[in-house]
């Protein structure tokens, strides 16, 4: 380490090292949030631009008029999180219990493989699969399981499917990381004390991998609730979520103060679960 840097670290001067990061955060994160917060209390002017006087109307409209869309967003995000958890936990367990390093590597590779393609392209691919004349309908017709094409695209199901598909790796990877640290001798100890498979899972494996489960749920819930491309392309007007709403408020001759209020509500809904995550993480840290 260079001498001047060592002096900096040793003295109280090492606080200086955080200055660039603090400046960055203030300029590009805190300041914009404050500006948006300010705009959210303003009125709509020509072209949707914010003007005085200050008002609370945007917030009352957010809950009264757009409450349904926000509720739907929360519902979609929750269902996505739960489905990802139910699928992702067994997947992580499967990867962890592979005996060879090679098999683990392949399984992990398959989990992250979809990331190699752009989300937009993958979502369009889903449209082709789910469309009325798409692959799935053709297949079902060919097998004579159905008589007429069924509506899959532009349904809630399609939105959930797309979200789960996109978010699953974010659930699998943190749970897998937790499980990789888990020593399976704890399962033996539980069995030795009379625990069957079910009790060993609920009392030992799940509690000890809970940090990964919480991390996975946060990592899935937060992007899900704010997702834009997937519900828009797969859900159409049945997949209306907050981000779509925001886009319509902020583009064209929309309503910028209204959009600001909605985004503040969205921010609050994301910050709360994150705060819970950080808080539980810290509690865990204090014990250790």
């Amino acid at each position: 380490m260079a001498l001047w840097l060592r002096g900096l670290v040793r003295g109280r001067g090492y606080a200086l090292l955080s200055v660039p990061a603090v400046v960055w955060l203030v300029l590009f994160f805190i300041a914009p949030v404050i500006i948006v917060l300010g705009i959210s209390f303003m009125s709509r002017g020509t072209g949707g631009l914010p003007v005085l006087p200050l008002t609370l109307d945007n917030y009352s409209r957010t809950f009264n008029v757009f409450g349904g869309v926000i509720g739907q967003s929360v519902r979609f995000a929750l269902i996505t999180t739960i489905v990802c958890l139910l699928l992702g936990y067994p997947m992580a367990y499967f990867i962890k219990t592979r005996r060879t390093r090679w098999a683990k590597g392949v399984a992990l590779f398959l989990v992250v493989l979809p990331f190699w393609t752009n989300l937009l392209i993958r979502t369009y691919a889903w449209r082709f699969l789910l469309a009325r004349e798409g692959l799935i309908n053709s297949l079902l017709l060919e097998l004579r399981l159905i008589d007429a094409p069924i509506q899959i695209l532009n349904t809630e199901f399609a939105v959930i499917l797309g979200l789960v598909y996109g978010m699953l790796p974010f659930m699998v990877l943190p749970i897998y990381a937790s499980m990789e640290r888990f020593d399976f001798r704890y399962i033996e100890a539980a069995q030795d004390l009379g625990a069957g498979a079910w009790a060993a899972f609920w009392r030992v494996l799940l509690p000890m991998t809970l940090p990964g489960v919480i991390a996975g749920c946060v990592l899935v819930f937060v992007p899900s609730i704010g997702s834009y491309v997937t519900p828009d392309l797969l859900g159409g007007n049945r997949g209306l979520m907050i981000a779509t709403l925001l886009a319509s408020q902020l583009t064209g001759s929309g309503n910028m103060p209204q959009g600001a209020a909605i985004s503040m509500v969205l921010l609050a809904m994301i910050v709360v679960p994150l705060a819970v995550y950080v808080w539980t993480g810290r509690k865990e840290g204090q014990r250790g």
Partner: protein
Amino acid sequence: MSDVKVRLVNVVKEFPSQEKSGQTRAVDGISFDIYDGEFFAMLGPSGCGKTTTLRMIAGFEQPTSGEIILDGVPMQGVPAFQRPVNTVFQDYVLFPHMTVLQNVMFGLQMAKVPQAEARRRAQDALDLVRLPKVAERKPRELSGGQQQRVALARALVNRPSVLLLDEPLGALDLKLRREMQVELKAMQTELGITFVYVTHDQEEALTMADRIAVMAGGHVLQIGTPSAIYETPNSRFVADFIGETNFLEAQLVRRQGAEGIVALDDDTQVRVALPERGISDDQLVTLAIRPERLVIQPYNSAPPLPDGWEEVVGHVGQVQYIGTDMRYYVRIGGHHVRVRAQNATAATAHLIREREVVRLRWQRDNARLLIQ
């Protein structure tokens, strides 16, 4: 000692070997009985199959062939959680997310013991291992010795038919280990529970066990009481693994009834009891004598040789003073022999010096003839 608690019949365990072809035999056809209330130790170097055997009794591994019978019931196909045994694991494996009390109560909860009774029994078990005040703490807040006691309480609270212990004292320092040896033995005697104890430490096995099975290479070499194993080892491996032994290559010169005359070298012949197993003339044999069973005397001022004793003459190499004992390295012909003598008085310590000519004597039945 009448009822058989654990019976192993020709138990074999094979694992897939590292190279892709074939299997490795970790346990190669072992059979023995463990009796009710017994402290039974499986002793051997790492890789001898002792831990695998314990894990098969616990139900974590299934034997490739052979049978394990617990309380008269064949354990084939009985999963670990249904067996009447509990295990104290090496480095304890306490549940880190539970308090000490929750750890100890776990087995009782699995057995559907009512909560109040489970709590009382868990507290009793913690009292038994002399840890009454740590119930609400997390395992990682305890010292290694305390964790060891919690592990013991967690297993004992279930009143197992057999308690399995897998090197439970391995992670403790020497002083604590000695203390725990005394406590474990006292606890086992008091509770009357059958202990099956796996260790690579001969001192642990000797001090605590009623009987020891010495294992190597997946086989049981010898089973017996500590003194039987120490005094009458049936093989060079057992003699060498348990305590210290001088091995002197020798040749049987002639037999005289149950005894034989063996030549250590051209000038030195001694008399020794012949082993029960057949031995042919001129066969190469090994004379085994413990260092502490040899008596060293100055060549010129030794008292006359008593009846039933043997004597050889040698030259003292190194002399080591180690407080309680003196250790001499004596050369007899081509052999190097270690001798240990207790320093009963301060005067004995410096009686014999390096390069002196000495007489080494031993009582005849303290030497054993092992067939090579």
